[in-house]
């Protein structure tokens, strides 16, 4: 199966995960149009 990036979409969840896993967040602001 083809690999695909699994994005989080909520800051609170990303912050919680980053804290638990001691990682930085890669935040991509994209154009929705």
């Amino acid at each position, binding site marked *: 199966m083809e*690999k*695909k*990036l*699994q*994005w*989080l*979409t*909520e*800051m609170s969840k*990303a*912050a*919680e*995960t*980053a*804290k638990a*896993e001691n*990682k*930085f*967040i*890669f*935040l*991509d*602001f*994209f*154009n*929705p149009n």
Partner: protein
Amino acid sequence: MDTVTYPQEKVIDFITDGMVPLRVAADHPLASGYDVTWTPALLVIDSEGKEYHRVVGFLPDDEFVPAILLGIGKAFFNKNEFSKALEKFEEIMTSYPASDSAAEAIFMAGVSGYKNSNDPMPLKKSYEYLAEKHPDSLWTKRAYPYRLLD
């Protein structure tokens, strides 16, 4: 980014293994909190939301990993974790020496080496290395005073 960079396996592995990927539309209220006015805007932030690095505009896959590694290095540097910062900058120098992030990584490796040891020699070496590998870079000009250190 969606058609060229993000589908690449090396990009997926890099983000998945070392970071927490978060994707937010630029019309979301979070975007105005980070003063985002153009996309793509790619940020390295910590769990408190503090920003350490930003790239605005498209990055091809061969520039993406070193550009974001540079951001992780800067994040460690700004948290006074200089040996971890040095590790990231040296990874760019070793694995991505031809990337557009390489010159800044050499500069930052010199500064991190100095902050980590209080020895000015890493600064001088960073200038010498920059002068040899990236003679026309702005980072070589910024490191120019370090040639006088001994």
